């Protein structure tokens, strides 16, 4: 069941750029509204969780610092770089789509999905190695937050695969091409990357 993210072109909304005149970077507001509501909302929801993380970190500073030392910061660094590259790729994809070279854009989209898969794989590896060493969700508050934040983020990455799937389908089938959908999907993936950047700073590096 493919999930076609059709833009909000209700009776009142302006038509989307279906395949013609996609060169115009500014897309009518009506097409962008839907995903942005979600992105902004999700940012604030995550913001709330980050504040809770810091409040609890303030309470048990030593426990958090010790547990943080157990985490492998280099693994976190690799993950961050992978997602930054994937964000770059999806930006290139949008850029190529604007220049209407859709095959190139589709290639970039596939590369983004690949990066996402690598990120998910390293994340699962990191979890299993931590759990193997006895540091699980219930060992202490730090690891509770660690598994909670990374798990919710991984859920967003998995949803990202669906969204990127829609992006590839939109790029592949000329009838469906609409710049609004392409930019919506890219914006979602940027949000996923952006949230990881903050998680990396808070969970791995904060002293």
């Amino acid at each position, binding site marked *: 069941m493919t999930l076609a993210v059709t833009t909000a072109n209700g009776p009142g909304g302006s038509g989307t750029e279906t395949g013609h005149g996609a060169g115009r*970077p*500014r*897309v009518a*507001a009506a097409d*962008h*509204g839907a995903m*942005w509501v979600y*992105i*902004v909302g999700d*940012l*604030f929801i995550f*913001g709330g969780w*980050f*504040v809770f993380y*810091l*409040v609890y*970190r*303030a309470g048990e*500073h030593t426990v958090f*610092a*010790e547990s*943080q*030392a157990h985490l492998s*910061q*280099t693994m*976190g*660094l690799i993950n*961050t*770089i992978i997602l*930054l*590259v994937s*964000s*770059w790729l*999806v*930006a*290139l994809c*949008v*850029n190529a789509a604007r220049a209407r070279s859709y095959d190139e854009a589709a290639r970039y989209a596939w590369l983004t999905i690949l990066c996402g898969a690598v990120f998910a794989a390293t994340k699962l590896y990191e979890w299993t190695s931590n759990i193997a060493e006895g540091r699980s969700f219930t060992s202490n508050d730090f690891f509770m937050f660690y598994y909670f934040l990374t798990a919710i983020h991984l859920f967003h990455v998995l949803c990202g695969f669906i969204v990127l799937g829609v992006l590839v389908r939109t790029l592949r089938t000329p009838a469906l091409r609409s710049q609004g959908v392409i*930019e919506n999907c*890219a*914006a979602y993936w*940027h*949000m996923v*990357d*952006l949230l990881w*950047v*903050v998680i*990396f*700073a*808070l969970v*791995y*590096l*904060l*002293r």
Partner: protein
Amino acid sequence: MAARTHLTVILVLLVSVTVLSWYLGTGGGAHPMAPNLTISAAVLFIALLKVRLIMSEFMDVGTAPAWVRRASNAWLVLFFAALFMVHIAVSGG
């Protein structure tokens, strides 16, 4: 072509800043994570910078509807201020 190079420059900037914050954060990976206010402040600031870059350059918040720009800026200011406050209030106090 200009847009592509522009994006690549942004990527390089982001990656290098990330490596810098990693280096700062782990203190070169030498001694364990001794609590240190200036380093965490630097790490938080770098994170703020990265988020701002991703939003404006990659996400094209500029082309998004106006309320999105205002809302994401408000989130940045509000959220990072809260982070600084909570963090400094603890280790400083």
